[in-house]
């Protein structure tokens, strides 16, 4: 119903009531003040509520508008069905829109407040007078002031050093604010300017500054590190290349960045490289990777590399850092050291082995059946084994430091000097038979071997002596030789004869008894009748087996003769032509000493040229021994056969006819005839040894071999 209609109806109602009441009063009760008052009250009451019914929606709308003005966005319910209802609908729509707008604004404000509250920064607004007109609660955190303490105050009253002039010109600047507690805080200020205010966002950059300092620090380390520090992306491509890497590999950063790390590696190590990256991803880092790298100029270097994964704040892999150190020199040094160590170990092993051997040898020496001792350059005994104690009678304590000449019989007191001179001349292996004096004064025959004791620094520092007691052997040999030889000659002696045939006969006889025959003569061997293998032609010109007719050289030649069963024939005639008798005589004296001391065998000097005077002959015969021959009643070939069988029997052998045939180079018949001759005289007998017939000297035969000497 429209308002117009409502008004009409209300007015109509009032009019009808008034009319009815008026008619009722007039027609029945008459005009009375009381009744008129009643009518007025009724009409006023009706009018009051009628107008109230009309004004109610207006009042509601007014109240709703007042609420809207106060900010209370409430809808209004008007059920009048008239224009007020439409107005209320429009009002309600407006309220809804305002609510939506207010909610949006509130949401926006809450969002803004939430952002401002939660954001890590202080937001404030300044008006044109630079007074703070808004501040976020973070002012407490940044300055230590409460919001109400700063609102309305000029910014420079709060922050004395605030660069107020900058906010008009710059959108962003940095400065160090001083808090209420006088703490200095570096901040970054972002300014947005509107018409009447400056909105400033202050953010602490303390952490950033710290990070920048740390970054600068690490950049310094990165740049000045002698190690190559290379940062790689997840595809193992180089993204950073420090100065150390430039020096190490020769590539500049510009050349290296963007390339895969593989370009530094030999192709055969790419697989290992991939494996290292895989391990770095799984385990975080891989340390102590020793690997080969190529430099720009093609050199190969060895690096020790540490590969570490780099993760961002979300834990996602963003790359790797490879730190490489050139260990080429170190590796070489290690290899050398290793080789040296190995060499040292080898030598140590050798030393230990040698030591072991030495112990072993010492044990051998100590327990040897030979007397072993050593002598220094002063002739003092420096070592002495048990056998030496037994052999020579001196205990070790007595012998050590004792003069070695105490061991020498009187006639060979100069043996030590002789040995030292020989060793100094270069002889390293002296072996000879000699004699030694025991503590109780007995003289024993010994076979000694001399070895020099050398010092790496000082050279010869003494010699060792291995002595074997050969007294019994020597005695039996002397006896055997005496029986077998046709001449009365003794080993270690020098003889002189003026008969060349006798000299040759002695030498040949000695050769037959096992001596090594040596002939030093100007005569030809076929003339002399000796074998050529032991012949030395005395001649100045060196050709073949010659020796210069020089006493010293002849002496040296004889000295060098090995062994001690030498049968030497020295033809003095050519020497006497070349040298005076005194020198020859002196040579013979030295040879006499040599043969006596070293017991080298038998030397027969011969001269039949008549160049010697009687006195000289007499001197020579006095100095040397005289050769005597045995008287044997047997023909020489028979005596030779008897001596052959005797010599074989001495060693337990019993020769057959065949052996005689081959030894004497004779026919069977001749051999049988000679054997029969000796068997008939009872000097040998034939006995059976299995199927063979062998020969053995009888007691009579032995007697013949011991026949007395004849002059």
């Amino acid at each position, binding site marked *: 119903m429209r308002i117009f209609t409502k008004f009409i109806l209300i007015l109509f109602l009032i009019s009808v009531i008034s009319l009815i009441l008026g008619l009722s009063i007039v027609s029945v009760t008459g005009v009375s003040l009381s009744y008129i008052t009643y009518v007025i009250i009724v009409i006023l009451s009706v009018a009051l509520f009628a107008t109230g019914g009309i004004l*109610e929606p207006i009042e509601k709308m007014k109240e709703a508008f007042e609420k809207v003005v106060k900010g209370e966005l409430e809808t209004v319910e008007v059920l009048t069905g008239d224009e007020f209802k439409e107005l209320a609908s429009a009002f309600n729509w407006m309220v809804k829109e305002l609510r939506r707008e207010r909610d949006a604004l509130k949401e926006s404000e809450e969002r803004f407040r939430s952002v401002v509250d939660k954001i890590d920064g202080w937001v404030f607004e300044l008006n044109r007078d630079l007074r703070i007109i808004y501040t976020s609660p973070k002012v407490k955190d940044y300055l230590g002031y409460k919001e109400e303490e700063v609102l309305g105050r000029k910014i420079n009253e709060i922050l004395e050093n605030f660069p107020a002039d900058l906010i008009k010109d710059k959108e962003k600047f940095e400065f160090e604010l001083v808090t209420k507690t006088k703490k200095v805080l570096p901040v970054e200020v972002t300014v947005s300017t509107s018409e009447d205010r400056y909105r400033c966002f202050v953010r602490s950059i303390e952490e950033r500054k710290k990070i920048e300092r740390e970054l600068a620090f690490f950049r310094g380390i990165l740049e000045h590190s002698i190690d190559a520090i290379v940062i790689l992306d997840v595809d193992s491509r180089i993204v950073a290349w420090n100065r150390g890497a430039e020096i190490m590999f020769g590539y500049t950063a510009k050349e290296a960045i963007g390339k895969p790390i593989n370009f530094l590696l030999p192709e055969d190590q790419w697989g290992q490289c991939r494996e290292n990256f895989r391990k770095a991803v799984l385990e975080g880092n891989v340390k102590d990777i020793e690997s080969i790298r190529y430099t720009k100029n093609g050199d190969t270097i060895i690096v020790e590399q540490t590969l570490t994964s780099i993760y961002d704040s979300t834990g996602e892999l963003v790359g790797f850092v490879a730190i490489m150190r050139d260990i080429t020199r170190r590796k070489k040094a290690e290899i050398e050291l290793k080789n040296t160590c190995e060499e040292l170990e080898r030598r140590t092993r050798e030393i230990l082995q040698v030591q072991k051997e030495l112990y072993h040898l010492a044990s051998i020496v100590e327990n040897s059946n030979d007397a072993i001792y050593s002598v220094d350059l002063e002739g003092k005994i420096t070592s002495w084994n048990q056998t030496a104690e037994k052999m020579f009678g001196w205990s070790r304590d007595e012998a050590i430091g004792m003069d070695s000449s105490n061991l020498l019989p009187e006639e060979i007191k100069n043996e030590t000097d002789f040995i030292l001179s020989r060793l100094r001349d270069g002889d390293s292996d002296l072996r000879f038979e000699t004699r030694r004096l025991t503590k109780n004064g007995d003289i024993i025959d010994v076979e000694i071997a001399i070895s020099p004791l050398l010092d790496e620094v000082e050279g010869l520092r003494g010699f060792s002596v291995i002595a074997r007691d050969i007294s019994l052997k020597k005695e039996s040999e002397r006896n055997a030789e005496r029986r077998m030889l046709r001449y009365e000659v003794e080993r270690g002696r020098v003889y002189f004869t003026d008969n060349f045939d006798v000299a040759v006969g002695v030498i040949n006889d000695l050769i037959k008894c096992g001596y090594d025959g040596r002939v030093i003569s100007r005569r030809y061997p076929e003339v002399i009748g000796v074998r050529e293998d032991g012949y030395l032609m005395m001649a100045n010109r060196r050709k073949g087996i010659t020796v210069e007719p020089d006493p010293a050289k002849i002496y040296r030649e004889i000295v060098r003769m090995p062994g001690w069963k030498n049968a030497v024939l020295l033809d003095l005639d050519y020497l006497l032509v070349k040298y005076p008798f005194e020198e020859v005589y002196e040579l013979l004296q030295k040879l006499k000493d040599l043969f006596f001391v070293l017991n080298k065998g038998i030397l027969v000097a011969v001269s039949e040229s008549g160049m010697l005077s009687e006195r000289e002959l007499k001197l020579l015969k006095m100095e040397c021994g005289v050769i005597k021959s045995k008287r044997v009643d047997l023909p020489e070939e028979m005596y030779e056969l008897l001596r052959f069988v005797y010599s074989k029997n001495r060693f337990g052998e019993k020769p057959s006819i065949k052996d005689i045939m081959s030894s004497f180079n004779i026919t069977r018949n001749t051999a049988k005839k000679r054997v029969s001759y000796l068997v008939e005289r009872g000097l040998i007998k034939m006995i059976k040894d299995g199927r063979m017939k062998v020969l053995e000297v009888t007691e009579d035969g032995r007697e013949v071999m011991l026949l007395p000497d004849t002059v």
Partner: protein
Amino acid sequence: MRDTFKMPDLTKIGLPPIKIWGYPILLFFCGITAYIISIYDPAFEPLFLALVFGMVAGNFQNGEKMKKISEKSLAVLLPLGITLYGLNINIPYLGEFRPEIVISTLLIASVMFVGIVWLSKLLKISRHLSLLLACGSGICGVSAIAIVSPLLRPKKEEFSAAIIIITAVGLTGAIIYPSIGHFTGISPDDYAIMAGATLHQTGLVKISSHFVGLEEEALAVKGIRIAMIALVALVLSILYSESRFYVPWYIVTFLAVALFATTYLPSQIVEMLRPVATVVFSMTLAAIGYSVDIRKVQRVGVKPLLISYAGWLFGLAVFAILLWGGVL
């Protein structure tokens, strides 16, 4: 908040507020004035007048503080006024009436009561206001509203509007009934029954029945309706009590006083005390009127007024049916 423009504050227009000590005097003045006027013209219900006086006094003063004091004073004045008002209740002896008169009166009152409640529900009038209007129309006008209002706890503007509406409708009836009696030609006895059974207030019954000279008969019929207040008060107190079967003490004392005054208390004393009770209850209504905003009273609209007229007409219709049906 938006502060684009400011609404004028109408409450600041008017007389300066009275002092705190002037408030009881003001109430007493309102009460005694209303009572005096009602003596001269019983049509002017003293409770109604006191309410109007209180409203006028309250709406022409800017005494928010005093209004709060008046609201608090009701906690004492209202039970006291109700209790004393029991002296004005004269419970009739039903044996004096013919049964059809008693039944017809109760039926008419019930139809008016139910009719108003029904129409209120139909037109979406608040339940409290509809009950106040129903009680006012069916029982004994303003006094019934004043007695049941503490039980229903209606808004002050609804309470005030109900009193004004019932007074206006009652006055309308008081003016029109002589004409009805004159033009319809019903007998004076029937007229007395009609006035007693359908008019809202005792004063109005007295005035309207003065027309035919059967005031006592009309007031006796009205007494049947007045006696219903005891029953209705009990029922409503039980229905609207916070706890079950609870009856407020002032209702009990009200009923006790009414019973005592009707039966044992000497009528001289009752007659002597009745002005006091009327003045005290008027002061209570003046206090209510003092704290109520007349614009809010106005805003209940014309519907309750129309419903009250309709309820009254329902009563008249039932009476007409009973009359012409030969019951009366």
